[in-house]
Protein backbone atom coordinates (compact mmCIF):
# COMPACT_ATOMS: atom_id res chain seq x y z
CA UNK A 1 0.00 0.00 0.00
CA UNK A 2 2.23 2.76 -1.34
CA UNK A 3 -0.33 5.43 -0.58
CA UNK A 4 -0.53 4.46 3.03
CA UNK A 5 3.25 4.47 3.47
CA UNK A 6 3.52 7.87 1.89
CA UNK A 7 0.61 9.23 3.85
CA UNK A 8 -1.27 9.89 0.60
CA UNK A 9 -4.30 7.86 1.61
CA UNK A 10 -5.79 9.10 4.82
CA UNK A 11 -8.71 8.08 7.02
CA UNK A 12 -9.12 4.65 5.55
CA UNK A 13 -11.52 2.73 7.79
CA UNK A 14 -8.91 -0.02 8.11
CA UNK A 15 -6.55 2.36 9.90
CA UNK A 16 -8.91 2.91 12.74
CA UNK A 17 -8.39 1.00 15.97
CA UNK A 18 -10.95 -1.52 17.12
CA UNK A 19 -13.22 -0.49 19.98
CA UNK A 20 -15.10 -2.61 22.50
CA UNK A 21 -17.98 -0.45 23.73
CA UNK A 22 -18.91 -1.56 27.25
CA UNK A 23 -22.16 -0.39 28.82
CA UNK A 24 -22.96 -1.68 32.29
CA UNK A 25 -26.66 -1.16 32.87
CA UNK A 26 -29.74 -2.52 34.59
CA UNK A 27 -33.34 -1.67 35.54
CA UNK A 28 -32.41 1.59 37.33
CA UNK A 29 -31.05 2.91 34.02
CA UNK A 30 -33.88 1.56 31.85
CA UNK A 31 -35.15 5.06 31.17
CA UNK A 32 -31.94 5.90 29.27
CA UNK A 33 -31.78 2.75 27.14
CA UNK A 34 -33.40 4.19 24.03
CA UNK A 35 -31.22 7.28 24.16
CA UNK A 36 -28.15 5.07 24.46
CA UNK A 37 -29.10 2.89 21.49
CA UNK A 38 -29.89 5.98 19.40
CA UNK A 39 -26.54 7.56 20.20
CA UNK A 40 -24.64 4.36 19.33
CA UNK A 41 -26.49 4.12 16.01
CA UNK A 42 -25.53 7.69 15.36
CA UNK A 43 -21.85 7.18 16.20
CA UNK A 44 -19.35 8.46 13.65
CA UNK A 45 -17.19 5.34 13.41
CA UNK A 46 -17.02 2.35 11.02
CA UNK A 47 -19.32 -0.42 12.34
CA UNK A 48 -16.73 -3.06 11.39
CA UNK A 49 -14.38 -1.57 13.97
CA UNK A 50 -16.69 -1.53 16.95
CA UNK A 51 -18.72 -3.93 19.03
CA UNK A 52 -21.55 -2.91 21.37
CA UNK A 53 -21.58 -4.87 24.61
CA UNK A 54 -24.09 -4.43 27.40
CA UNK A 55 -23.55 -5.80 30.88
CA UNK A 56 -26.68 -6.54 32.88
CA UNK A 57 -26.89 -7.48 36.55
CA UNK A 58 -29.69 -10.00 36.86
CA UNK A 59 -30.99 -10.28 40.42
CA UNK A 60 -33.38 -13.08 39.55
CA UNK A 61 -36.33 -10.72 40.01
CA UNK A 62 -39.17 -10.16 37.54
CA UNK A 63 -37.94 -6.60 37.15
CA UNK A 64 -34.45 -7.76 36.09
CA UNK A 65 -35.89 -10.31 33.69
CA UNK A 66 -38.24 -7.72 32.14
CA UNK A 67 -35.31 -5.34 31.63
CA UNK A 68 -33.17 -8.06 30.06
CA UNK A 69 -35.95 -9.02 27.66
CA UNK A 70 -36.53 -5.37 26.77
CA UNK A 71 -32.82 -4.89 26.09
CA UNK A 72 -32.70 -8.01 23.90
CA UNK A 73 -35.69 -6.83 21.89
CA UNK A 74 -34.45 -3.30 21.47
CA UNK A 75 -30.91 -4.39 20.62
CA UNK A 76 -32.21 -6.75 17.97
CA UNK A 77 -34.62 -4.16 16.59
CA UNK A 78 -31.87 -1.55 16.46
CA UNK A 79 -30.28 -3.62 13.73
CA UNK A 80 -26.69 -2.69 14.48
CA UNK A 81 -24.22 -3.39 11.70
CA UNK A 82 -21.54 -4.19 14.26
CA UNK A 83 -21.21 -7.12 16.68
CA UNK A 84 -23.39 -6.89 19.76
CA UNK A 85 -23.50 -8.85 23.00
CA UNK A 86 -25.15 -8.92 26.41
CA UNK A 87 -23.11 -10.18 29.37
CA UNK A 88 -25.39 -11.22 32.19
CA UNK A 89 -24.15 -11.53 35.76
CA UNK A 90 -26.00 -13.12 38.67
CA UNK A 91 -24.97 -11.61 41.99
CA UNK A 92 -25.05 -13.59 45.20
CA UNK A 93 -25.11 -12.63 48.87
CA UNK A 94 -21.35 -13.14 48.84
CA UNK A 95 -21.00 -10.41 46.19
CA UNK A 96 -23.03 -8.04 48.30
CA UNK A 97 -20.99 -8.90 51.40
CA UNK A 98 -17.86 -8.14 49.45
CA UNK A 99 -18.75 -4.97 47.58
CA UNK A 100 -21.76 -3.49 49.37
CA UNK A 101 -24.08 -1.53 47.10
CA UNK A 102 -21.40 -1.43 44.39
CA UNK A 103 -21.72 -5.17 43.75
CA UNK A 104 -23.89 -4.75 40.64
CA UNK A 105 -21.64 -2.41 38.72
CA UNK A 106 -18.45 -4.20 39.82
CA UNK A 107 -19.70 -7.62 38.70
CA UNK A 108 -20.92 -6.11 35.48
CA UNK A 109 -17.70 -4.33 34.58
CA UNK A 110 -15.62 -7.34 35.68
CA UNK A 111 -17.53 -9.51 33.18
CA UNK A 112 -17.15 -6.85 30.47
CA UNK A 113 -13.41 -6.52 31.21
CA UNK A 114 -12.90 -10.29 30.82
CA UNK A 115 -14.96 -10.40 27.65
CA UNK A 116 -12.92 -7.50 26.23
CA UNK A 117 -9.59 -9.13 27.11
CA UNK A 118 -10.72 -12.37 25.47
CA UNK A 119 -11.14 -10.44 22.24
CA UNK A 120 -8.28 -8.85 20.39
CA UNK A 121 -9.87 -5.41 20.47
CA UNK A 122 -7.53 -2.48 21.08
CA UNK A 123 -9.67 -0.12 23.18
CA UNK A 124 -12.29 -0.50 25.89
CA UNK A 125 -14.80 2.33 25.83
CA UNK A 126 -16.75 2.37 29.06
CA UNK A 127 -20.03 4.27 28.99
CA UNK A 128 -22.40 4.81 31.86
CA UNK A 129 -25.87 3.42 31.15
CA UNK A 130 -27.27 6.96 31.07
CA UNK A 131 -24.35 8.68 29.32
CA UNK A 132 -25.09 8.48 25.60
CA UNK A 133 -22.10 9.84 23.69
CA UNK A 134 -22.54 12.56 21.07
CA UNK A 135 -21.69 11.55 17.49
CA UNK A 136 -18.05 12.62 17.32
CA UNK A 137 -17.00 11.66 20.85
CA UNK A 138 -15.08 8.50 20.03
CA UNK A 139 -13.01 10.09 17.27
CA UNK A 140 -12.16 13.00 19.53
CA UNK A 141 -11.10 10.77 22.40
CA UNK A 142 -8.92 8.69 20.08
CA UNK A 143 -7.07 11.80 18.98
CA UNK A 144 -5.97 12.48 22.56
CA UNK A 145 -2.74 10.84 23.67
CA UNK A 146 -3.22 8.98 26.90
CA UNK A 147 -3.78 5.54 28.36
CA UNK A 148 -7.18 6.38 29.81
CA UNK A 149 -8.90 9.32 28.18
CA UNK A 150 -12.19 10.56 29.55
CA UNK A 151 -14.75 12.98 28.28
CA UNK A 152 -16.34 15.23 30.83
CA UNK A 153 -19.70 14.02 32.02
CA UNK A 154 -22.24 16.55 33.12
CA UNK A 155 -23.45 16.05 36.62
CA UNK A 156 -27.04 14.96 36.90
CA UNK A 157 -29.30 17.01 39.07
CA UNK A 158 -30.57 15.88 42.40
CA UNK A 159 -33.65 16.72 44.36
CA UNK A 160 -31.36 17.77 47.13
CA UNK A 161 -30.86 21.48 47.37
CA UNK A 162 -27.12 21.35 47.80
CA UNK A 163 -26.74 19.26 44.64
CA UNK A 164 -28.79 21.75 42.68
CA UNK A 165 -26.40 24.43 43.72
CA UNK A 166 -23.43 22.20 42.96
CA UNK A 167 -24.76 21.33 39.57
CA UNK A 168 -23.91 24.80 38.37
CA UNK A 169 -20.49 24.60 39.88
CA UNK A 170 -19.65 21.01 39.10
CA UNK A 171 -19.45 21.00 35.41
CA UNK A 172 -17.93 18.69 34.34
CA UNK A 173 -17.55 16.01 36.99
CA UNK A 174 -14.04 15.93 38.22
CA UNK A 175 -12.66 14.66 41.47
CA UNK A 176 -10.04 16.78 43.08
CA UNK A 177 -8.72 13.96 45.18
CA UNK A 178 -9.49 10.44 46.18
CA UNK A 179 -10.99 9.83 49.51
CA UNK A 180 -9.51 6.87 51.33
CA UNK A 181 -11.37 6.16 54.50
CA UNK A 182 -8.86 3.89 56.15
CA UNK A 183 -11.06 3.83 59.20
CA UNK A 184 -13.80 1.83 57.46
CA UNK A 185 -12.68 -1.79 57.53
CA UNK A 186 -13.95 -4.10 54.82
CA UNK A 187 -15.03 -6.75 57.30
CA UNK A 188 -17.72 -4.50 58.78
CA UNK A 189 -21.29 -5.67 58.52
CA UNK A 190 -22.17 -4.77 54.88
CA UNK A 191 -25.09 -2.46 55.59
CA UNK A 192 -23.09 -0.50 58.15
CA UNK A 193 -20.12 -0.26 55.80
CA UNK A 194 -22.44 0.94 53.09
CA UNK A 195 -24.02 3.54 55.33
CA UNK A 196 -20.63 4.98 56.12
CA UNK A 197 -19.58 4.97 52.50
CA UNK A 198 -22.85 6.55 51.42
CA UNK A 199 -22.38 9.29 53.98
CA UNK A 200 -19.14 10.17 52.29
CA UNK A 201 -20.66 9.89 48.85
CA UNK A 202 -23.29 12.42 49.84
CA UNK A 203 -20.59 14.77 50.95
CA UNK A 204 -19.82 17.00 48.07
CA UNK A 205 -16.22 16.85 47.04
CA UNK A 206 -16.89 17.29 43.40
CA UNK A 207 -15.44 20.48 42.18
CA UNK A 208 -14.92 22.67 39.21
CA UNK A 209 -11.71 21.64 37.50
CA UNK A 210 -8.90 24.09 38.06
CA UNK A 211 -9.04 25.21 34.47
CA UNK A 212 -6.54 27.74 33.31
CA UNK A 213 -7.18 29.91 30.27
CA UNK A 214 -7.09 27.82 27.13
CA UNK A 215 -6.37 24.62 29.01
CA UNK A 216 -8.22 21.64 27.66
CA UNK A 217 -6.65 18.56 29.25
CA UNK A 218 -5.90 17.59 32.83
CA UNK A 219 -3.37 14.76 33.23
CA UNK A 220 -2.90 12.20 36.02
CA UNK A 221 -6.19 12.90 37.65
CA UNK A 222 -9.17 10.94 38.89
CA UNK A 223 -12.57 10.89 37.23
CA UNK A 224 -15.75 8.89 36.90
CA UNK A 225 -16.21 6.28 34.19
CA UNK A 226 -19.23 7.76 32.45
CA UNK A 227 -17.30 8.02 29.19
CA UNK A 228 -13.72 6.81 29.29
CA UNK A 229 -11.61 5.20 26.63
CA UNK A 230 -9.06 2.73 27.99
CA UNK A 231 -6.09 1.25 26.17
CA UNK A 232 -5.99 -2.56 26.22
CA UNK A 233 -2.75 -2.84 28.17
CA UNK A 234 -4.16 -0.86 31.09
CA UNK A 235 -6.90 -3.44 31.66
CA UNK A 236 -4.33 -6.20 31.67
CA UNK A 237 -2.86 -4.60 34.81
CA UNK A 238 -5.85 -3.24 36.69
CA UNK A 239 -9.64 -3.32 36.70
CA UNK A 240 -12.66 -1.61 38.22
CA UNK A 241 -13.02 -2.70 41.83
CA UNK A 242 -13.11 -1.11 45.27
CA UNK A 243 -9.93 -0.72 47.22
CA UNK A 244 -9.61 -2.56 50.50
CA UNK A 245 -9.57 0.70 52.43
CA UNK A 246 -13.06 1.55 51.20
CA UNK A 247 -12.28 3.96 48.38
CA UNK A 248 -15.14 6.07 47.16
CA UNK A 249 -16.20 4.09 44.10
CA UNK A 250 -14.84 1.58 41.62
CA UNK A 251 -14.11 4.14 38.88
CA UNK A 252 -12.16 6.47 41.14
CA UNK A 253 -10.20 3.56 42.53
CA UNK A 254 -9.46 2.45 38.98
CA UNK A 255 -8.03 5.87 38.07
CA UNK A 256 -5.95 5.85 41.23
CA UNK A 257 -4.47 2.44 40.35
CA UNK A 258 -3.90 3.48 36.74
CA UNK A 259 -1.90 6.49 37.92
CA UNK A 260 0.01 4.37 40.43
CA UNK A 261 0.99 1.93 37.71
CA UNK A 262 2.50 4.75 35.71
CA UNK A 263 -0.16 5.07 33.02
CA UNK A 264 -1.48 8.44 31.98
CA UNK A 265 -5.05 9.44 32.76
CA UNK A 266 -6.36 12.40 30.80
CA UNK A 267 -9.57 14.34 31.29
CA UNK A 268 -10.74 16.24 28.22
CA UNK A 269 -12.61 19.30 29.44
CA UNK A 270 -13.99 20.21 26.04
CA UNK A 271 -15.46 16.84 25.05
CA UNK A 272 -18.66 16.30 26.90
CA UNK A 273 -20.92 13.36 27.33
CA UNK A 274 -24.56 13.74 28.21
CA UNK A 275 -26.23 12.63 31.39
CA UNK A 276 -29.90 11.75 31.20
CA UNK A 277 -32.23 11.94 34.13
CA UNK A 278 -35.28 9.82 34.82
CA UNK A 279 -37.63 12.63 33.86
CA UNK A 280 -35.93 12.96 30.48
CA UNK A 281 -33.90 15.99 31.43
CA UNK A 282 -30.56 16.14 29.72
CA UNK A 283 -27.58 17.56 31.58
Amino acid at each position, binding site marked *: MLGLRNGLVKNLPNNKPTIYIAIPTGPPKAYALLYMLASLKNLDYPPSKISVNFGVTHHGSANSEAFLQQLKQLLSASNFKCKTSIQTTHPTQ*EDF*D*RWGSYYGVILNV*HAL*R*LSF*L*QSKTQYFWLLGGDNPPPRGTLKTLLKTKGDVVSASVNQRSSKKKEYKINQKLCYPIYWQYIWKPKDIPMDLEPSLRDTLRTAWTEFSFLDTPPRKDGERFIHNCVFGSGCSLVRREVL*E*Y*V*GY*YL*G*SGGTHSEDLHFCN*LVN*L*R*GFDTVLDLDTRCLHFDEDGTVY
Partner: protein
Amino acid sequence: MSNHPDAFTHLQFETATNCNAKCTFCSHPKMKRHGTMPLTKIIDLTYNLAYKAKTICPFHMQEPFLEPRLDKILSNVRSFNPQAYIVVYTNMSIYPEKQLENIVKWGLIDDLIISCYGGTPEQHNQMQPGTDYNTVVENIKRLIKLKDKHKHGLPNIKVGYLITKETRPYLNTFRKYWADTATTALFHYDSWCGTKPYNIEYEEKVWGKSAPRVPCFELYNSQIIHYDGTLVPCCLDYNNDMALGNVFDDYHLWWTSPELKEMRKLHEQGRYSEIIMCSKCTKWRHNHRVEWINYWINKQHIPVPSAMNP
Protein backbone atom coordinates in the same frame (compact mmCIF):
# COMPACT_ATOMS: atom_id res chain seq x y z
CA MET B 1 -19.21 -19.87 52.70
CA SER B 2 -17.69 -17.28 55.00
CA ASN B 3 -18.97 -19.27 57.98
CA HIS B 4 -17.25 -22.46 56.90
CA PRO B 5 -15.18 -23.82 59.79
CA ASP B 6 -12.17 -24.57 57.62
CA ALA B 7 -9.62 -21.81 57.35
CA PHE B 8 -8.30 -20.81 53.95
CA THR B 9 -5.15 -18.77 54.28
CA HIS B 10 -2.88 -19.69 51.41
CA LEU B 11 -3.50 -19.50 47.66
CA GLN B 12 -1.04 -20.86 45.14
CA PHE B 13 -1.70 -21.11 41.43
CA GLU B 14 0.23 -21.92 38.32
CA THR B 15 0.18 -19.54 35.36
CA ALA B 16 2.34 -21.75 33.14
CA THR B 17 4.54 -24.82 33.52
CA ASN B 18 7.84 -23.93 31.88
CA CYS B 19 11.16 -23.93 33.71
CA ASN B 20 14.66 -23.39 32.37
CA ALA B 21 16.34 -25.55 35.03
CA LYS B 22 16.45 -29.26 35.65
CA CYS B 23 17.18 -29.25 39.34
CA THR B 24 18.12 -32.61 40.78
CA PHE B 25 15.97 -32.15 43.92
CA CYS B 26 12.84 -31.04 42.04
CA SER B 27 10.15 -33.12 40.35
CA HIS B 28 9.51 -30.61 37.58
CA PRO B 29 11.45 -32.68 35.00
CA LYS B 30 9.03 -35.56 35.66
CA MET B 31 5.94 -33.46 35.11
CA LYS B 32 3.51 -34.77 32.51
CA ARG B 33 1.27 -31.70 32.43
CA HIS B 34 2.23 -28.68 30.34
CA GLY B 35 0.29 -25.56 29.44
CA THR B 36 -0.53 -21.92 30.16
CA MET B 37 -3.40 -20.28 31.98
CA PRO B 38 -4.96 -17.46 29.90
CA LEU B 39 -4.72 -13.99 31.45
CA THR B 40 -8.51 -13.69 31.67
CA LYS B 41 -8.65 -16.90 33.74
CA ILE B 42 -5.89 -15.60 36.01
CA ILE B 43 -7.80 -12.34 36.54
CA ASP B 44 -11.05 -14.19 37.23
CA LEU B 45 -9.35 -16.62 39.59
CA THR B 46 -7.69 -13.83 41.56
CA TYR B 47 -10.97 -11.88 41.57
CA ASN B 48 -12.77 -14.84 43.11
CA LEU B 49 -10.14 -16.28 45.45
CA ALA B 50 -7.23 -13.93 46.14
CA TYR B 51 -9.18 -11.57 48.35
CA LYS B 52 -9.77 -14.32 50.89
CA ALA B 53 -6.14 -15.41 51.24
CA LYS B 54 -3.53 -14.16 53.67
CA THR B 55 -0.57 -15.38 51.63
CA ILE B 56 -0.47 -15.76 47.87
CA CYS B 57 2.06 -17.57 45.70
CA PRO B 58 1.05 -16.63 42.17
CA PHE B 59 3.35 -19.21 40.56
CA HIS B 60 3.76 -22.92 41.19
CA MET B 61 5.50 -25.61 39.09
CA GLN B 62 7.28 -23.06 36.89
CA GLU B 63 10.04 -20.48 36.78
CA PRO B 64 8.15 -17.18 37.29
CA PHE B 65 10.80 -15.04 35.59
CA LEU B 66 10.07 -16.86 32.33
CA GLU B 67 6.47 -15.61 32.58
CA PRO B 68 6.02 -12.77 30.06
CA ARG B 69 2.95 -11.55 31.98
CA LEU B 70 4.77 -11.49 35.32
CA ASP B 71 4.10 -7.87 36.34
CA LYS B 72 0.54 -7.94 34.98
CA ILE B 73 -0.29 -11.00 37.07
CA LEU B 74 1.29 -9.54 40.19
CA SER B 75 -0.45 -6.21 39.61
CA ASN B 76 -3.82 -7.96 39.55
CA VAL B 77 -3.05 -10.02 42.64
CA ARG B 78 -1.88 -6.94 44.56
CA SER B 79 -4.89 -4.86 43.56
CA PHE B 80 -7.39 -7.57 44.50
CA ASN B 81 -5.81 -8.05 47.90
CA PRO B 82 -3.37 -5.33 48.98
CA GLN B 83 -3.11 -6.87 52.45
CA ALA B 84 -2.03 -10.33 51.29
CA TYR B 85 1.58 -11.39 51.64
CA ILE B 86 2.86 -12.18 48.15
CA VAL B 87 5.63 -14.74 47.92
CA VAL B 88 7.51 -15.68 44.74
CA TYR B 89 10.12 -18.44 44.35
CA THR B 90 12.67 -18.19 41.55
CA ASN B 91 16.03 -19.59 40.49
CA MET B 92 16.97 -16.01 39.45
CA SER B 93 18.98 -17.19 36.47
CA ILE B 94 16.92 -14.87 34.29
CA TYR B 95 16.57 -11.13 34.79
CA PRO B 96 13.43 -9.72 33.13
CA GLU B 97 14.58 -6.12 33.39
CA LYS B 98 11.46 -4.16 32.50
CA GLN B 99 9.17 -6.32 34.59
CA LEU B 100 11.43 -6.27 37.63
CA GLU B 101 11.60 -2.49 37.35
CA ASN B 102 7.79 -2.37 37.60
CA ILE B 103 7.68 -4.97 40.36
CA VAL B 104 10.15 -3.06 42.53
CA LYS B 105 8.64 0.34 41.72
CA TRP B 106 5.13 -0.79 42.58
CA GLY B 107 6.05 -3.09 45.47
CA LEU B 108 4.32 -6.12 43.97
CA ILE B 109 6.25 -8.87 45.81
CA ASP B 110 6.72 -9.15 49.57
CA ASP B 111 9.15 -12.07 49.69
CA LEU B 112 11.31 -13.10 46.76
CA ILE B 113 12.86 -16.42 47.65
CA ILE B 114 15.78 -17.38 45.46
CA SER B 115 16.95 -20.96 45.07
CA CYS B 116 20.69 -20.46 44.99
CA TYR B 117 21.69 -23.89 46.17
CA GLY B 118 25.13 -25.41 46.33
CA GLY B 119 28.17 -24.47 48.35
CA THR B 120 30.41 -23.82 45.35
CA PRO B 121 29.68 -22.64 41.82
CA GLU B 122 30.40 -26.16 40.55
CA GLN B 123 28.06 -27.74 43.10
CA HIS B 124 25.35 -25.20 42.24
CA ASN B 125 25.60 -25.91 38.53
CA GLN B 126 25.42 -29.65 39.24
CA MET B 127 22.37 -29.32 41.49
CA GLN B 128 20.57 -26.82 39.28
CA PRO B 129 21.54 -27.65 35.67
CA GLY B 130 20.32 -25.02 33.24
CA THR B 131 21.32 -22.22 35.59
CA ASP B 132 24.72 -20.67 36.18
CA TYR B 133 25.88 -19.73 39.68
CA ASN B 134 27.73 -16.58 38.64
CA THR B 135 24.77 -15.32 36.62
CA VAL B 136 22.43 -15.96 39.55
CA VAL B 137 24.66 -14.08 41.98
CA GLU B 138 25.06 -11.22 39.52
CA ASN B 139 21.28 -11.03 39.04
CA ILE B 140 20.68 -10.95 42.79
CA LYS B 141 23.12 -8.08 43.19
CA ARG B 142 21.51 -6.27 40.28
CA LEU B 143 18.12 -6.56 41.94
CA ILE B 144 19.49 -5.25 45.23
CA LYS B 145 20.84 -2.22 43.35
CA LEU B 146 17.44 -1.71 41.74
CA LYS B 147 15.81 -1.74 45.17
CA ASP B 148 18.32 0.83 46.38
CA LYS B 149 17.63 2.99 43.34
CA HIS B 150 13.91 3.07 44.07
CA LYS B 151 14.51 3.32 47.82
CA HIS B 152 11.89 0.61 48.15
CA GLY B 153 11.80 -1.97 50.91
CA LEU B 154 10.21 -4.63 48.71
CA PRO B 155 10.75 -7.33 47.79
CA ASN B 156 12.46 -8.85 50.80
CA ILE B 157 15.20 -10.81 49.09
CA LYS B 158 15.81 -14.19 50.68
CA VAL B 159 18.57 -16.34 49.27
CA GLY B 160 17.68 -19.97 49.86
CA TYR B 161 20.02 -22.84 50.60
CA LEU B 162 19.04 -26.49 50.44
CA ILE B 163 20.63 -28.63 53.15
CA THR B 164 21.97 -31.95 51.89
CA LYS B 165 24.94 -34.11 52.80
CA GLU B 166 26.92 -32.43 50.04
CA THR B 167 25.95 -28.80 50.69
CA ARG B 168 26.01 -28.77 54.48
CA PRO B 169 29.80 -28.40 54.82
CA TYR B 170 29.60 -25.10 52.91
CA LEU B 171 26.74 -23.60 54.92
CA ASN B 172 28.88 -21.13 56.86
CA THR B 173 30.61 -19.95 53.70
CA PHE B 174 27.19 -19.36 52.16
CA ARG B 175 25.96 -17.43 55.20
CA LYS B 176 29.07 -15.27 55.35
CA TYR B 177 28.85 -14.50 51.63
CA TRP B 178 25.32 -13.07 51.89
CA ALA B 179 25.57 -11.66 55.43
CA ASP B 180 25.80 -8.02 54.37
CA THR B 181 23.53 -8.03 51.36
CA ALA B 182 20.54 -10.36 51.77
CA THR B 183 18.63 -12.52 54.20
CA THR B 184 19.25 -16.23 53.91
CA ALA B 185 16.77 -19.07 54.31
CA LEU B 186 17.49 -22.75 54.81
CA PHE B 187 15.40 -25.43 53.16
CA HIS B 188 14.74 -29.06 53.99
CA TYR B 189 15.36 -31.66 51.37
CA ASP B 190 12.16 -33.53 50.51
CA SER B 191 11.37 -36.86 48.89
CA TRP B 192 8.42 -35.53 46.83
CA CYS B 193 6.20 -38.30 48.19
CA GLY B 194 8.72 -41.05 47.76
CA THR B 195 9.83 -40.15 44.25
CA LYS B 196 13.29 -38.97 45.40
CA PRO B 197 15.73 -40.79 47.69
CA TYR B 198 15.34 -39.79 51.33
CA ASN B 199 17.46 -40.62 54.35
CA ILE B 200 15.49 -40.20 57.57
CA GLU B 201 18.52 -40.75 59.79
CA TYR B 202 20.46 -37.98 58.06
CA GLU B 203 17.53 -35.55 58.11
CA GLU B 204 16.95 -36.18 61.81
CA LYS B 205 20.64 -35.71 62.49
CA VAL B 206 20.48 -32.29 60.81
CA TRP B 207 17.05 -31.03 61.85
CA GLY B 208 16.33 -33.02 64.98
CA LYS B 209 13.71 -35.66 65.67
CA SER B 210 10.74 -35.74 63.30
CA ALA B 211 7.70 -33.78 64.48
CA PRO B 212 4.66 -35.73 65.68
CA ARG B 213 2.42 -36.32 62.67
CA VAL B 214 -0.81 -34.33 62.75
CA PRO B 215 -3.38 -33.61 60.00
CA CYS B 216 -1.71 -31.79 57.13
CA PHE B 217 -1.74 -28.00 57.26
CA GLU B 218 -2.30 -27.76 53.52
CA LEU B 219 -5.55 -29.72 53.57
CA TYR B 220 -7.10 -27.06 55.79
CA ASN B 221 -5.40 -23.94 54.56
CA SER B 222 -4.07 -24.09 51.02
CA GLN B 223 -5.71 -23.98 47.64
CA ILE B 224 -3.27 -25.25 45.02
CA ILE B 225 -4.49 -24.66 41.48
CA HIS B 226 -2.79 -25.85 38.31
CA TYR B 227 -2.68 -23.98 34.99
CA ASP B 228 -5.86 -25.63 33.66
CA GLY B 229 -7.84 -24.87 36.83
CA THR B 230 -7.35 -28.29 38.44
CA LEU B 231 -7.51 -28.07 42.22
CA VAL B 232 -5.17 -30.45 44.05
CA PRO B 233 -4.95 -31.00 47.81
CA CYS B 234 -1.16 -30.91 48.00
CA CYS B 235 1.60 -28.77 46.49
CA LEU B 236 3.56 -31.96 45.77
CA ASP B 237 0.81 -33.37 43.54
CA TYR B 238 2.49 -32.15 40.37
CA ASN B 239 0.83 -34.69 38.08
CA ASN B 240 -2.79 -34.28 39.25
CA ASP B 241 -2.81 -37.71 40.92
CA MET B 242 -5.34 -36.48 43.47
CA ALA B 243 -7.24 -33.95 41.33
CA LEU B 244 -10.33 -32.67 43.16
CA GLY B 245 -12.03 -30.97 40.22
CA ASN B 246 -11.80 -27.70 38.35
CA VAL B 247 -12.14 -24.31 40.06
CA PHE B 248 -13.20 -22.70 36.79
CA ASP B 249 -16.39 -24.75 37.07
CA ASP B 250 -16.90 -23.81 40.71
CA TYR B 251 -14.81 -21.41 42.77
CA HIS B 252 -16.31 -22.91 45.95
CA LEU B 253 -14.83 -26.31 45.17
CA TRP B 254 -12.23 -26.19 47.95
CA TRP B 255 -15.01 -25.76 50.50
CA THR B 256 -17.38 -28.32 48.99
CA SER B 257 -15.19 -31.12 47.60
CA PRO B 258 -16.28 -34.45 49.16
CA GLU B 259 -12.85 -35.94 48.37
CA LEU B 260 -11.10 -33.21 50.31
CA LYS B 261 -13.49 -33.66 53.24
CA GLU B 262 -12.75 -37.39 53.19
CA MET B 263 -9.00 -36.76 53.15
CA ARG B 264 -9.29 -34.44 56.14
CA LYS B 265 -11.31 -37.10 57.96
CA LEU B 266 -8.69 -39.76 57.26
CA HIS B 267 -5.95 -37.42 58.49
CA GLU B 268 -7.89 -36.62 61.66
CA GLN B 269 -8.19 -40.35 62.31
CA GLY B 270 -4.47 -40.86 61.71
CA ARG B 271 -5.14 -43.06 58.66
CA TYR B 272 -2.44 -41.42 56.53
CA SER B 273 -1.44 -44.71 54.93
CA GLU B 274 -4.83 -44.95 53.21
CA ILE B 275 -3.95 -42.07 50.89
CA ILE B 276 -1.13 -43.17 48.57
CA MET B 277 0.66 -39.81 48.35
CA CYS B 278 0.31 -39.12 52.07
CA SER B 279 1.61 -42.60 52.89
CA LYS B 280 4.89 -41.70 51.18
CA CYS B 281 5.07 -38.10 52.39
CA THR B 282 8.16 -36.95 54.25
CA LYS B 283 7.40 -33.25 54.30
CA TRP B 284 5.51 -33.46 57.59
CA ARG B 285 8.65 -34.59 59.44
CA HIS B 286 10.41 -31.24 59.52
CA ASN B 287 8.55 -28.76 57.35
CA HIS B 288 5.90 -27.85 59.91
CA ARG B 289 4.33 -24.99 61.78
CA VAL B 290 4.62 -25.32 65.52
CA GLU B 291 1.31 -23.61 66.27
CA TRP B 292 -0.49 -25.97 63.89
CA ILE B 293 0.96 -29.03 65.59
CA ASN B 294 0.14 -27.58 68.99
CA TYR B 295 -3.46 -27.10 67.95
CA TRP B 296 -3.90 -30.75 67.15
CA ILE B 297 -1.97 -31.96 70.14
CA ASN B 298 -3.48 -29.66 72.72
CA LYS B 299 -6.87 -29.22 71.05
CA GLN B 300 -6.49 -25.48 71.19
CA HIS B 301 -8.41 -23.14 68.95
CA ILE B 302 -7.16 -22.92 65.36
CA PRO B 303 -4.41 -20.31 65.27
CA VAL B 304 -4.04 -17.89 62.43
CA PRO B 305 -0.94 -19.21 60.69
CA SER B 306 1.87 -16.76 60.36
CA ALA B 307 2.91 -15.54 56.92
CA MET B 308 4.70 -18.18 54.94
CA ASN B 309 8.29 -17.79 55.94
CA PRO B 310 10.56 -20.78 55.63
